[in-house]
């Protein structure tokens, strides 16, 4: 048992290392030679507090991205090569601190691009973005509105891609006809509920109950699950629950004897879920976020640079921390780098124009369209193919890349109907 701590435990439980990396974060520019020209990129996300899991792993991923890019010569602009440096600001998921952070990053640190988690914090930073014309990115496209001209949602169009999982499910398991859904009652859960409702309706799957909403502070999921499976559904949909909820819900489903299909937006750390339930129970679990060692990602259509190498490096440095957030910010940086190199400059307006040039962009999972007018009032979300991931024999595998625009062309009205019912259209928000 001691071998385990020394091999796994000590490297993972890294009291000293964390302290060292906190210090290194402050002095990250030591790695960039003073003589090099440097472009600074702002990272304005929660790094402490309860929402830190949506920010900090992304910053870790970006550090790896920066090292890889810098080692390969940096960003090649018209007036020479630039090294990349990330400047973090902890906004604690608070709009007022996001505003202060945006001001600091833009007006004092002179960053050329700011990546955010978005959500509650975007409206705080928005006035600063409007005044300075700075280019921002968000992980949550529900921040988009007609007046957010310099805000892009280039990584994931949450929750629209969830339709691909349901579509694949309906095609491959056509005998499953009834479903229930549960979600936390917040900004991430509600639009996702609307999307799943539209996708189920499009696939001819009947909802047995109204969606079951629970408070984000819930810790014991037994009552939620008891209610969820009371009517014997064939499909249980876990919506866009955070992993803090997905795990205990799956465990409760297992313990309360549920044996049907499960579909979810995310399944971060699914190996732990298998450990808590069983390989058989988790077989066929459908979700939307692949491991980046998946061979299907080596396909030529994939634009994420060196996914297997990135995954290996990330899991080496931060064992057991891999999740969707780990790669998404880095994938945004890929897009930004292409835009900047195409424009020959890092100036926000020029990069934005280059990124949106031709209405198409190189999304992580393949070339995609700038889209969103219908739902967000502005075409600033990058939408294309999205992977459907299924757990087979204890390992997540990409089963298909399905096109979101194709689904939307057929069933767009359903989506708009359900989004409107949940007050999620851009003109209903705020």
């Amino acid at each position, binding site marked *: 048992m001691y071998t385990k701590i020394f091999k796994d435990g000590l490297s993972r439980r890294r009291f000293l290392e964390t302290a060292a990396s906190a210090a290194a974060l402050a002095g990250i520019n030591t790695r960039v030679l003073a003589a090099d020209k440097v472009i600074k990129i702002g990272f304005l996300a929660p790094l402490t507090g309860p929402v830190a899991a949506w920010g900090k792993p992304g910053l870790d991923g970006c550090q790896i991205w920066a090292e890889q890019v810098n080692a390969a010569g940096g960003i090649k602009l018209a007036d020479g090569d630039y090294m990349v440096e990330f400047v973090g600001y902890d906004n604690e998921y608070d*709009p007022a601190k996001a505003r202060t952070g945006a001001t600091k990053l833009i007006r004092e640190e002179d960053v050329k691009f700011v990546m955010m988690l978005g959500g509650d914090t975007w409206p705080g930073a928005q006035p600063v973005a409007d005044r300075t014309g700075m280019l921002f990115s968000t992980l949550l496209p529900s921040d988009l509105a007609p007046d957010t001209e310099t805000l892009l949602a280039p990584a994931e169009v949450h929750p629209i891609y969830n339709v691909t999982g349901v579509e694949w499910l309906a095609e491959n398991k056509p005998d499953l006809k009834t479903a229930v859904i549960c979600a936390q009652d917040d900004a991430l859960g509600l639009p996702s509920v609307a999307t799943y409702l539209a996708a189920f309706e499009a696939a001819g799957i009947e909802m047995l109950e109204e969606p079951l909403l629970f408070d984000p502070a819930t810790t014991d999921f037994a009552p939620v699950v008891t209610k969820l499976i009371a009517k014997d559904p064939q499909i249980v949909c876990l919506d866009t629950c955070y992993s803090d909820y997905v795990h205990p819900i799956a465990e409760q489903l297992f313990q309360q004897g549920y044996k049907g299909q499960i579909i979810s937006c995310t399944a971060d750390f699914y190996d732990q879920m298998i450990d808590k339930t069983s390989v058989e129970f988790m077989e066929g679990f459908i979700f939307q976020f692949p491991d980046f060692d998946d061979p299907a990602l080596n396909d030529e259509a994939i634009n994420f640079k060196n996914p297997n190498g990135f995954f290996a490096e990330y899991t080496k440095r931060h064992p057991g921390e891999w999740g969707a957030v780990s790669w998404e910010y880095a994938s945004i940086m890929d897009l930004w780098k292409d835009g900047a190199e195409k424009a020959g400059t890092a100036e926000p307006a020029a990069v934005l124009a280059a990124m949106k040039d031709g209405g198409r962009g190189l999304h992580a999972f393949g070339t995609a369209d700038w889209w969103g007018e219908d739902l967000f009032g502005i075409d600033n979300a990058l939408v294309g193919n999205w992977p459907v991931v299924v757990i087979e024999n204890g390992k997540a595998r990409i089963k298909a890349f399905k096109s979101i625009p194709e689904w939307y062309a057929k069933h767009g009205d359903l989506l708009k109907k359900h989004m409107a019912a949940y007050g999620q259209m851009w003109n209903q928000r705020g």
Partner: protein
Amino acid sequence: MPRAVSHIAGWLGLAVLLIALPHALSFSQQEVLVFLTINVLLVASYRLLTLTGEWSLGHVVIMGVGAYASALYSKQLGIYVPVSIILGALTAVLVAMVLSYPLFRMKGFYFLIGSFAAGEIIRLLWKRFRDPFGGPKGIKKINPMPDLDIGVYSFDFFEPVSYYYFALAVVTLSLWVMWRIERSPVGLTFHAVHWQDKLAQSAGVDVRAYRTRAFMIASGFAGLSGALLAHYIGTINPNSFDVELMVFVLTWAIVGGTATFYGPILGCVVLSILNEVVLRELGFEQMRPFIYGLLLICSVLFLPNGLESVVQHIMRRRTNVQAAKASRAGDSARYNVEERTEP
């Protein structure tokens, strides 16, 4: 009248300092300054409530009531922003009045937890009723203060410096009003209610009515600070007013000390600058909660009477030196009497 002169000179100096201050700061520090000014009002209003001996955990939610009310009045009803700010504060007074009926059946620890529960219920209502409160995402695009040109200075209220001057004026006026209230017979009764509960009662003071009055006045100023905040950042949501901010207000007040008017303000200013400026500049971005927690513990252990006790100590020494000089000049009697009435 050398004393009056030095008094006026002191206040003038402070005024000049506060007006010049933003121009000496960086952009992000100016932003911090705006939020700090608003928080000063919040924590000073909190002290007014604690004068009667009750410690509330719902004060920040009351601040939120002012913020939500003012935001909704200006956004939904199209009310002119400065007016809606005042209406927001009045709404907070009204809500406090309603809450006071159940809450002032309790005292001490029960009041503390009761006020917390009442606040959480209000917060859950904001979350639950998407119309008109916007649900968990809250309200966005709140009307800003309309720009204003007064000839000598043109206010663009997006700019932190302009909003700082506006907030500074409102907060100064509010602090002056609170100071007058505390010095009035009503305020002195607040003190009596705290220290001599039973005695005040037997002297015919309706203790509960005075507690309610203090609660309503404090809530009004808290609501005002919330409205100021809402029209500056332009977005509010239920989590902006959660127990975490309440904990900060509580610690500002206690670390600063609540025996004097300036104690909580001092606590708020010192702790906020440490947390938002010093620790970030030192590169402890992710270590801040740890260091902040350590600072809290050290301050209550080693400064049990708050930061104000340090100031009092310095002032007393200065006064003693002056008094010694004054007595040598043979003019001590009147002087000492005046000085001793200071708390």
